[in-house]
């Protein structure tokens, strides 16, 4: 009996000292690792790109951007590190930030993904100038500002209202029409929870904006000011008031695809969708061909740009800047428009006639931007607490 408890005590003691030892050791190695990779190496001929996105973005990079860039810059190879749906976004962001804070190369020269804005906010990205990336001169000022410290906007998309023409003869044309339609047709509309996808997020932002003073709404596009967020209250009331009229009296599906699925099955008649997902979904067959999409007015649904980021200590920074410059050229912007139905961020007038015709109704230049990234996180959290089940 006695020996047993002694052994238990000893094991516990060892476990504790073992722990302390580990903690000590890892602290040491964290501080003293020499700059791995560093400045040396034969990195002159390559640029390593991180992509945290859906497969359509991967295809864009692999099939169009890579061949185009390598042709324009002979001797430079573009290497892709793809994170499907950015599932490891949090870990990758931690890896990037940790490397940058200790002045090391994180393994990527250019980043394309949702974590870029968080990285910009953490201050670990190179702040490129309009001289380095010439296309930036043509990008609207607010889109640039929303990128924070070092986000480079390179493509856009907006949220549209998708509807089933069999169930809706004439879709609502304005915000007020849409609200009236939802209340007149209970159970036939829903949007995905904003935390799970941007199309539901754009709907929420639009309702919040409608109930906000214009200057507050404008500020939230470029700054994270917690004090302003209390002004969302009337917006939450408006969203809560929709609960009884939404699909199954308050079911908000998960993910952009969740609401599209309900629409495709005929369970609902209308839902917000991303413009590029709608177009590519109809091409691949996940969205029935007879579905339609339209934009509402006054206000319209928000959209936004996707941002590139160059880590401040990237090994091949010069090549990364070249690549960013290439992506904002008319040639690459045209690829984005053709391959993934993405909105160009430079003026349409600089693109071929054919592309101009495709986008003449979408008005990408009038894109109503979404909130600043950190504001979006607060919006998603607040929605979760204020709207469903209330």
């Amino acid at each position, binding site marked *: 009996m006695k020996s047993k408890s002694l052994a238990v005590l000893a*094991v516990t003691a060892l476990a504790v000292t073992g722990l302390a030892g*580990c903690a000590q050791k890892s602290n040491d190695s964290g501080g003293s690792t020499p700059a791995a990779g560093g400045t040396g190496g034969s990195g002159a001929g390559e640029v390593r790109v991180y992509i945290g996105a859906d497969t359509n973005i991967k295809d864009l990079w692999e099939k169009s951007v890579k061949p185009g860039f390598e042709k324009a810059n002979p001797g430079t190879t573009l290497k892709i590190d793809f994170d499907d749906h950015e599932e490891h976004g*949090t870990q990758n962001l931690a890896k990037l930030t*940790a490397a940058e804070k200790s002045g090391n190369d994180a393994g990527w020269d250019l980043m394309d993904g949702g974590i870029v804005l968080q990285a910009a906010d953490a201050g670990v990205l190179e702040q490129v100038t309009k001289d380095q990336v010439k296309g930036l001169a043509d990008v609207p000022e607010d889109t640039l500002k929303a990128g924070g410290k070092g986000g480079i906007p390179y493509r856009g998309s907006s949220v549209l209202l998708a509807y089933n023409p069999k169930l809706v003869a004439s879709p609502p044309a304005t915000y007020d029409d849409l609200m009236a339609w939802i209340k007149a047709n209970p159970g036939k509309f829903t949007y995905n929870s904003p935390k799970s996808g941007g199309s539901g997020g754009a709907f929420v932002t639009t309702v919040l904006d409608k109930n906000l003073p214009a200057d507050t709404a404008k500020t939230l596009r470029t700054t994270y000011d917690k004090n302003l967020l209390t002004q969302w209250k009337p917006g939450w009331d408006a969203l809560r008031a929709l609960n009884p009229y939404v699909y199954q009296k308050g079911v908000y599906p998960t993910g952009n695809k969740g609401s599209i699925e309900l629409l495709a099955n005929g*369970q609902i008649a209308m839902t917000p969708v991303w413009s590029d997902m709608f177009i590519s979904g109809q091409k691949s067959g996940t969205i029935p061909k007879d579905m339609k999409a339209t934009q509402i007015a006054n206000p319209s649904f928000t959209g936004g740009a996707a941002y590139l980021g160059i880590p401040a200590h990237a090994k091949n920074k010069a090549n990364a800047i070249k690549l960013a410059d290439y992506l904002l050229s008319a040639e690459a912007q045209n690829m984005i428009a053709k391959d993934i139905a993405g909105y160009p961020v430079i003026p349409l007038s600089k693109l071929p006639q054919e592309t101009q015709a495709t986008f003449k109704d979408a008005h990408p230049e009038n894109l109503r931007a979404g909130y600043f990234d950190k504001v979006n996180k607060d919006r998603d*959290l607040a929605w979760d607490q204020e709207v469903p*089940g209330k």
Partner: protein
Amino acid sequence: MSAAATRRTAWRGFFLALPPVAFIALFAGMPIVLAFLFTLGYGGGLNEITALIGQDVYLADGPPGTVEPYRVVFASGRFREDLIVTILVTIVSTLIVITVALAIALFLRLRGGRIANLLTILTIVPMFIPVVISAYALRTFYSDIGFLPTLFAQVGATGPAFAYSVPGLVIGSVWTNLPFAVLMISSGVAAVPDSVIDAARDSGAGLLRTTGSVILPMAMVPIVIATTFTAIGIIGSFTIPYFLGRNSQTMLGVDIASYFIAFNRPQQAIVMAFVVFALASLIAATYVWANFRQAKEADQV
């Protein structure tokens, strides 16, 4: 055994246990300690990056730390509601799982035959289907255009749609956890010797008496193991509530993921994880207690 020999055995046992203990301390213990310190506002060292990236991170200046993260989480009505749903789903699902598993095991033990065997095999099938697939299938099956509403519609009635509801969470949890409980309990019940059951019957005990006074007590340990493992599995489940739950009134597994990824609030996510951890520890404690009692009865301690 002499005192010296006892001590030698103890040391040998200690060294035998050393590799796994060291392994657990390094790969599970240290991250847990770090995470716990983070919830108390310690944002230095290995927590530095998480503290830098996260929003609404509360940091303390020094020991003993701050309980602000815990206060914020518990002050949220959403968290309290989901905590109740989580506990409720866990209790109800576990009760159903154990009752069904026990009924099947007794049926197999006392009656046997082809039907009993078939039933057992059927209940084990979910074990071979990945949870993601079955959760998705359950959602489709129980949706408002699923099987039940379609069936009821044939006679002009409205059938229930369990997808996106708390009953849906219970159905999903039972579905995924039944196989393990059936395997565990039926093997425990099968281990009760025929002679004991026959003896009980010879002394005039009926079915209820035989079950209550002979089979259940003898199969107690497997039943307790099945109960605790089922409950711990359900309390921390993610996939079933992610697919079958609503946005509000869902389980903490989904909340933890949302807070960690979508809301960028790692500290609050970890606080919730520790709440689930504490609840699971309570369940585990009953398991340890049952094992200990069993060993004591058998005079092994």
